[in-house]
């Protein structure tokens, strides 16, 4: 499986789309966590508001700033990564090339998942690293004291961020295997992340008891609650306090397992035509 893993890593590393997704995730994170707030700070009309805005960009807020966008926009990008990595194998016909070499189907599949897990971790670490650089630059520029989160908090933040993005990535992988393509999984996945969950939470849950209960089991809601448990403000889109951090973690782990099992089952059982 190690040889297949290195093949998968080579494919991901050399693929321009992987780097585009990483750059977009980094750019969005920088713009909405640091650039826009800093511009707001510079143009704020009263000193108290300016101080609050500046405080939000400081290194002590590195964790919520880094993973605040994971339930929505970074989640959509992770789903896209999962969907293109699998879906394009169908589009280019390369699945048959992979599966006629030597390893068993599930071995190739496991190697692919492992490579995606590493890629998602690299995205999370990059967002944290660039956030750390920018926030410390702002703090130094404004002569503010620098307080970093503890190592344990940082590790929990990175692990939680990875779990959230990996869950969305696996949803993309599962949809790509089920629909044997790329476009439909990305379309459906992004509509779910950015639209359907919002409608259930903000419209249906207010009207129906059933929907109010259902929202506690949705992946996006649990991702938002996990971010909230790590200090994310509920004014950030997608972040909420619907469930506690432990439940959110368990629900996301369960989703990740279910998505991975369904995807593996689809690959193992179906003909490659």
């Amino acid at each position, binding site marked *: 499986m190690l*040889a297949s893993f290195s093949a998968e890593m*080579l494919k991901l590393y050399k693929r321009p789309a992987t780097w585009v997704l990483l750059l977009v995730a980094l750019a969005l994170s920088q713009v909405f966590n640091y650039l826009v707030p800093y511009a707001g700070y510079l143009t704020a009309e009263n000193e108290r508001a300016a101080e609050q805005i500046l405080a939000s960009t400081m290194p002590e807020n590195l964790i919520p700033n880094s993973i605040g966008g994971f339930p929505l926009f970074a989640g959509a990008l992770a789903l896209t990564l999962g969907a293109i990595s699998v879906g394009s194998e169908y589009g280019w016909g390369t699945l*048959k090339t992979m599966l006629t070499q030597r390893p068993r189907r599930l071995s190739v599949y496991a190697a692919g998942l492992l490579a995606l897990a590493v890629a998602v971790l690299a995205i999370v670490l990059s967002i944290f690293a660039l956030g750390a650089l920018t926030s410390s630059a702002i703090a130094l520029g404004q002569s503010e004291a620098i307080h970093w989160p503890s190592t344990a908090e940082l590790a929990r933040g990175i692990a939680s961020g990875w779990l959230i993005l990996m869950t969305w990535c696996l949803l993309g992988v599962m949809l790509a295997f089920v629909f044997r393509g790329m476009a439909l999984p990305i379309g459906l996945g992004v509509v779910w992340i950015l639209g359907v969950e919002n409608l259930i939470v903000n419209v249906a849950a207010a009207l129906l008891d059933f929907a109010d209960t259902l929202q506690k089991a949705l992946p996006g809601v649990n991702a938002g609650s996990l971010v909230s448990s790590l200090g994310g403000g509920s004014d950030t889109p997608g972040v909420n306090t619907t469930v506690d951090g432990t439940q959110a973690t368990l629900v996301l782990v369960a989703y990740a397992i279910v998505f991975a099992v369904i995807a593996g089952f689809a690959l193992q059982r179906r003909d490659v035509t």
Partner: protein
Amino acid sequence: MGHVILETTKLTKRYGKRIIAVDSVSLTVRRGEVYGFLGPNGAGKTTTLRMLLGLIRPTSGTASVLGRAPGSPQSLARVGALVESPAFYPYLSGRDNMRVIARYAGVPKKRIEDALEQVDLTDRARDKFATYSLGMKQRLGVAATLLKDPELLILDEPTNGLDPAGMADMRALIRRLGSGERTVLLSSHLLGEVEQICDRVGVISKGRLIAESTVEELRGGASLLVAAKPLDRARERAEQLLGPEHVKVLDGTLRLDADPASAGRINRELVGANVEVTELRPIERTLEEVFLEMTDQKGESNVG
């Protein structure tokens, strides 16, 4: 004659209740031969090959590839396959595509340059696959099949879409690869190609294997063409000599199922019956004629 390297027994693939893509195909490929799997488009060739590689599960029947179950790591490790069009990553160079395949196959990196050299692609190996011509893509596909130095090569329509020069190159390459101990299973709808390259042929039509033998056996023995006047008298005399079932009239000439060595005797007999013989020569049936007879699809064949 080599021992059996690939065998199927009543291999069948159904899609739903109505579509039978492959119907009870039993074929045998022996070590060291170039086996032509011949049939028109849609006959079931690719579905059969996919079953032999474990990409498609048969509905019923069995298959054995190098003594193992199709698609098992043990059989795939010794098989190189190019199924339908060559499929690679367009954003990778030819060499990087080979590196990916080599890693999946678990073969050393040094095999990559050997394989690229065998198909004459070393000079363009740094270019992206997306920029390759169809001929180069096909050659890269063959190079990928060679990475494992396989005992069995499965090539599905490898000359599809190539220009005449590209087809000639590819056929020469296949002949070279099929020399020695290596076995080649070549699927094609091109009769001339199979006739030129293959030792034995399996003919598939509408999902069924309708013949399996050497090319020579399939074509049958040579016959004699006779142009003569008057034709009726010539026919009458020929039927007396050979029997009516061995004489046919075709395009104003006689076709006699007779050993070409008997041409002199037949000529004497016809002349003796006051027939003027203007032409008498041996002819061989082409594989195309045989194929069209077997599949009974004159005028609607996709086979060329």
